[in-house]
């Protein structure tokens, strides 16, 4: 594959109770979004360790998005509040390191918001594509 036709690579962490179900609903309703987005299921958005996000960027991801239940609706009551604070910190640190703020995002998507899930992914994929490849944290030693 040639470098210039490289598609962006986006990792989406989705909590099991809301956003993963929202993604399923987008599928049920055949609402398309770019195949660049690959979903990893976590029990709650608060399960996402900043380490996972760093790892994704190190391995060449161009954007990482975290989706959870709306504030107040976390299945575990408070998980997404931790997520919100943790990620605010992490994302500004990443920005400082040269991973632009636009490459990272937290979104609240409920189980009923299939349309919001697809729209969010379309928008995020577009934003990330416009920024081009992430070279800042990518560790070339990880590539064969």
């Amino acid at each position, binding site marked *: 594959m040639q470098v210039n036709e490289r598609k962006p690579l986006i990792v989406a962490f989705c909590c099991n109770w809301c956003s993963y*179900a929202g993604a399923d609903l987008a599928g049920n309703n055949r609402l398309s979004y770019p195949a660049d987005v690959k979903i990893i299921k976590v029990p709650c958005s608060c*399960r996402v360790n900043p380490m996972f996000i760093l790892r994704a960027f190190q391995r060449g991801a161009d954007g990482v998005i975290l989706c959870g239940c709306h504030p107040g609706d976390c299945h*575990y009551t408070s998980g997404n509040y931790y997520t919100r604070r943790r990620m605010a910190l992490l994302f500004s640190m990443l920005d400082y390191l040269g991973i632009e703020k636009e490459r990272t995002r937290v979104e609240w998507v409920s189980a009923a918001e299939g349309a919001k899930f697809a729209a969010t992914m379309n928008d995020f994929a577009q934003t990330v594509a416009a920024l081009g490849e992430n070279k800042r944290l990518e560790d070339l030693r990880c590539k064969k």
Partner: protein
Amino acid sequence: MQRIGVFVCWCGSNIAGTVDVQAVSEALKNEPGVVFSANYQYMCSQAGQNMIIEAVKEHNLTGIVVCSCSPRMHEATFRKTAAAAGLNPYMVEIANIREQCSWVHKDMLTGTEKAIILGKAAVAKVNLNTPLVAGETPVTKRALVIGGGIAGIQTALDIAEAGFPVDIVETKPTIGGKMAQLDKTFPTLDCAACILTPKMVDVAQNENIRIFSYSEVTEVKGFVGNFDVTVKKKARYVNEDICTGCGACVEKCPMKKVPNEFNLNMDNRSAIYIPFAQAVPKVATIDPNHCNMLKNGRCGVCSKVCAAGAIDYKQKDEYIQEKYGAIVVATGFNPISMDKFDEYAYNQSKDVITSLEFERLTNAAGPTAGKLLRPSDLKHPHTIVFVQCVGSRCAACAEKGKEYCSKICCMYTAKHAMLTRDKYPDTEVYVFYIDVRTPGKSFDEFYRRAVEEYGVHYIKGMVGKVFPEGDKLKVQASDLLNNKQLHIDADLVVLAAAIEPDKSARPLATMLTASMDTNDFFTEAHPKLRPVESPTAGVFLSGTCQGPKDIPETVSQASAAAAKVISLLVKDKLKGNPCVASSDELMCNGCSSCERVCPYGAITYEDKEFRMPDRTVAIRRVAKVNPAVCQGCGCCTVVCPSGAMDLRGFANRQIIAEVDAICK
């Protein structure tokens, strides 16, 4: 090393239409650990499952990856298949190549490429899966029902009938809820008391039911099968066990000018009171805000007249702790406040009333002994205007009303209009409506009778303004069908106020970790398939706390919730979720970070002896997760500074393996 089998499902053409299933199963053959890979039309079918079972046996598989629909659909199915093949059910991972792939991507090339990557991530995860065994916890065979309206009553009776003990916690001094305040009930017009009070008596007499009236739930801990609940029994200053409900105290109490909430403040009661004659429990309660004895130590009449000696001015709030296996929420509804609806002059004229007040005005036990008299001058009203949808279906007036339809108002307004015309044929009755909504058995027939037989004037249009003038209420309204402005001189205006969940429901939901919608109605686990369960295991929903409902619907839901509770309580043990946190005690430094974030209090500490390299013994404080309490959110794993805490089934290593597989 695992021996993994990969099974790619076509899902008919649902997956195979946009994903080259053959190519996917070929590509995954070469992944580490994979020893077998196949594809089939319907993996979830009996034949598909048999294929998995045979492959497990033939190839000695230790792990399974199914590339198919969402795990929310069939993860449970394939876990059972694995168990049938002799594998641990948690050695299965699903790659969601339908909802996340074939259904959202249009062309074969993209779909296939992505399906392969999702498959690789699942394989990478299964390589690190370990067999998990769900812990078992015993079930406390007792249920708690919060709210004693018709919903709570029916649920409690059904559970008790099945032989399980039930406690009802009700904030008011009596059970009965709103139904106890109604006069007749649509669509059959039987009297509410005649059908409700026998049920209330059944509750009182049922050996399996305890009623905590004038009480509230203050704390809920624990989880399905094992809730620990604290109930506050507010001091009623009357010993419930001794009081016979004779009412001598009520009669003699000198403080007679207390607004009577049961009659919606349209008349007065005394400071010591029994809400209504058929109250259950039929015991008196002293209102501390109005009792002279409690306020300034002067009086004590009730204590003197009580032959049973039940009065106890020193009574204190009492806290009761009890264990329950299941909790049913039945906190009901209230009409919204009319304070913000100045256009209808509710606060300016006594003769503008709500429909619930109308129920009391027509009820034989109400403030006018059932005679329809207007509150201001107790004269018989000759022209009555009913206004429907006051505050309902009001997207534009969200700051004072509700966006939703309150569902019951069309029917009870038809009832009120019909009953008025039946008893007082000389009364002109107008009903203003946006739409008349009468879906329900015998409902439309009921409404048509009001129009056709009883000559009620139904006018499509909204009332713009009501204002008192002399002893009349001037009503300005539009008649949309005839495109006319109407001016009616009314004697009484009745507002069908929107209904909303009880205000105490929000803090209760937080205690129960049960979710609510934006209107504060409790959310069901699934809007269609699990309508009486809340998403929180062991918490069930009954009646109008979940959404507007009439009595028949409330009772059906109440019985359905009871059935769910019974099927939980008959189990001796419950299997828990094995995907829980656990800490590596060798790495844990006892910092308490995890304990602080755990929303369930699942983490405690214990002092452990460690043998040190120099043969001394050190005692260290280490975290310990109670697997029965942990719900598996994983929050603690992220705050652990030493990496001691991890989540089974979603371990750090597993998630990183997925990230790596996707980012290759």
